[in-house]
């Protein structure tokens, strides 16, 4: 039996899926899309049931990718039953979707979730009356506590009922009917002060809201990168030791396995703690109810650049590493805004580029090093925001459609946090690992043949061949090779210059160094980031990201070199 779970965002569908399947669900993508799909299985009363958690949507009018995916699923997959999960605290708004689901003539059960929060707000719903009006079973639940789940399972075994209600096809008829039904079944008792109101006094304060948000972002940043660093170093050490051990054995096969495959797999897995910790932090923010408030606070600023409040978190994460930052764009509902955020994310200077800035700023700007580096970061942000504006006006046009709903705060269920984190992290490994692995073998080949001496390898030859392209910037071939190797990982730029013993101060001028830093800031993302962009946005946008960033980097670096030379 296939059961589709449909409802607005933040109504507790994931918590309900968790409760129904006892955590036995997987996270993937709907075929051909980057929309997240959660699917779980359970045996209920001897019957095998597959629960498919559709993306949270406010309507089925297919204005956004999420809505389209949900609607297509209902039409093409023809589930046996729809569980329409509804937030009891906001019945009228949720009923609009319910009345659209009626048109599909699929057996339904309405799940009135978060009934405890509704009661705390003084909202009382006559579930029996609602059931009579809609003609379908209505079950009250508190999914995070598992309350009402057994009764829901009993109703599922009865296969639900096809709604009898006759509803007008147009938007206005449905809205009016939702309002009418809500008026008939909802009564309000005296409103009680609750924790949400207390918390919102602080977090949504006109003056404090944004500084508090910045503070929480720093907290997430520190948790993701600093607290995760022992695990990152452990993985790095383990794979480096294994790679050395294997490649020390004689034979080209061992060299391929050690220097190519193990090193390549290690270069993916080294990001794993950062990604896992990021997903933990994001899950805590999402499930606690704070995330929509952060989105609301930042929305006005981001809208000026064609983005939305939800773009802020991935952009800030990009200062640490673009890989988890691109993954974090999954929280953006509007596909155009999501793609724009993914495309500009690499301009947020990741931590891997810092060694490049420190090296060159230390040599050429000994007294102004900090100012130069901070200037580079600010410049990257400016390029990102301007690029976003251009993309949204030219390539990804259209007003972003989204609703910001402020759900009640709640203490995240740690089990939900763990399950969400595990499933998303596993998904990252499967998607990014395949491309990275393949490319690492290619790069091993280029740097190992025909000579193990990097200067005489294909990569070194490539550096010399590509050098004329960068002649306008006046860079020697070693710097060109370093830039090319930075395609694998930005840390490799400094490593390459070290291996070549490049006398930087002797063969480079200050304008050339500044241009080099600007180029490093802006040029194409590293392999791991590209693999993640491919997983999230497809090959077309990945190629665009490579070409666009290269062109911007080249033109800007050249301009910087010329201006710096003239000053």
């Amino acid at each position, binding site marked *: 039996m296939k059961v589709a779970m449909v409802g607005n965002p933040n109504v507790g569908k994931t918590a309900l899926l968790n409760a129904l399947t006892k955590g036995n669900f997987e996270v993937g993508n709907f075929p051909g899309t980057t929309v997240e799909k959660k699917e779980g299985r359970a045996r209920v009363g001897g019957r095998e049931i597959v629960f498919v958690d559709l993306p949270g949507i406010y309507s089925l009018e297919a204005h956004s990718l999420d809505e389209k995916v949900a609607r297509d699923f209902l039409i093409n997959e023809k589930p046996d039953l729809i569980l329409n999960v509804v937030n009891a605290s906001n019945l009228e708004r949720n009923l609009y979707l319910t009345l659209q689901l009626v048109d599909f003539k699929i057996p339904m059960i309405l799940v009135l979730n978060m009934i405890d929060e509704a*009661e705390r707000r003084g909202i009382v719903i006559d579930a029996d009356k609602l059931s009579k009006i809609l003609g379908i079973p209505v079950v009250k639940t508190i999914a995070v506590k598992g309350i009402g789940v057994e009764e829901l399972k009993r109703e599922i075994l009865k296969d639900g009922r096809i709604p009898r209600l006759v509803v007008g096809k147009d938007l206005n008829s449905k809205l009016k009917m939702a309002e009418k039904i809500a008026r008939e079944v909802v009564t309000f008792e005296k409103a*009680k002060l*609750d924790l949400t109101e207390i918390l919102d006094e602080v977090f949504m*304060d006109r*003056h*404090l809201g944004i*500084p508090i948000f910045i503070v929480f972002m720093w907290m997430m940043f520190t*948790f993701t990168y600093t607290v995760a*660093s022992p695990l990152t170093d452990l993985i790095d050490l383990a794979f480096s030791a294994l790679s050395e051990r294997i490649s020390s054995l004689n034979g080209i096969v061992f060299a391929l396995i050690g220097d190519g495959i193990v090193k390549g797999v290690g270069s993916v897995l080294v990001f794993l703690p950062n990604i896992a910790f990021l997903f933990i932090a994001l899950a805590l923010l999402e499930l606690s109810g704070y995330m929509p408030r952060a989105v609301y606070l930042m929305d006005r600023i981001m809208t000026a650049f064609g983005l939305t409040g939800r773009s802020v978190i991935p952009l800030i994460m990009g200062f640490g590493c673009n890989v988890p930052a691109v993954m974090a764009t999954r929280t953006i509902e509007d596909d155009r805004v999501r793609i724009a955020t993914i495309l500009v994310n690499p301009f947020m200077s990741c931590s891997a580029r810092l060694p490049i800035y420190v090296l060159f700023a230390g040599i050429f700007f000994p007294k102004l090093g900090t100012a130069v580096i901070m200037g580079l970061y600010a410049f990257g942000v400016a390029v990102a925001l301007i690029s976003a504006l251009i993309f949204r006006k030219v390539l990804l046009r259209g007003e972003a459609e989204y609703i910001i709903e402020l759900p009640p705060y709640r203490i995240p269920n740690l089990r939900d946090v763990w399950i969400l984190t595990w499933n998303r992290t596993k998904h990252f490994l499967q998607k990014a690992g395949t491309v990275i692995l393949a490319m690492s073998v290619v790069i091993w080949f280029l740097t190992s043949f025909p000579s193990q001496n990097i200067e005489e390898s294909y990569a070194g030859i490539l550096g010399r061949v590509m050098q004329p392209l960068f002649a306008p910037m006046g860079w020697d071939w070693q710097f060109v090779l370093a830039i090319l190797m930075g395609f694998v990982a930005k840390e490799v730029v400094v490593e390459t210059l070290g291996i070549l013993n490049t006398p930087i101060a002797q063969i480079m001028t200050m304008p050339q160094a500044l241009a080099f830093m600007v180029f490093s800031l802006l040029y194409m993302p590293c392999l791991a980031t590209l693999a993640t962009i491919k997983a999230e946005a497809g090959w077309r946008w990945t190629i665009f990201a490579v070409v666009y960033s290269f062109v911007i980097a080249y033109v800007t670096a050249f301009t910087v070199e010329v201006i710096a030379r003239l000053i």
Partner: protein
Amino acid sequence: MRWYSATLFLITLILGLTEIASGLKGESIVQMIPGDVFGGFILITISAVFLRGLTTKDYEPFFYFGSTMLAIFGILYLLVLLANGLDAIIVGEGWDPMNDLRVEILLVPLAVPGITLLIRAKKNLPP
């Protein structure tokens, strides 16, 4: 507890300004108060939360959450300290815990009254 909230406001404000000044100077002015512009900004933000409460009739929410934020950041800095120690063991480098011991960690006990009152207030709310 208004006076206590005022005390926490002053402490976090002074420490925040000291961290910012040290950060701009490029070295720590007072031991255990690192030069950290962003860390100072965080303390100033927390002090602003306490101050906002002091300027309103219902200061409790601001006192509760200022205390909670103080505790969260103290604990996070403690996690950073432990992570750096563990990292040093893994990569085989020397490590002096005093370098990572920050004043924010020592402020965590001062957050206890506010958090205790928050928990009591939550219990008194309808279930």
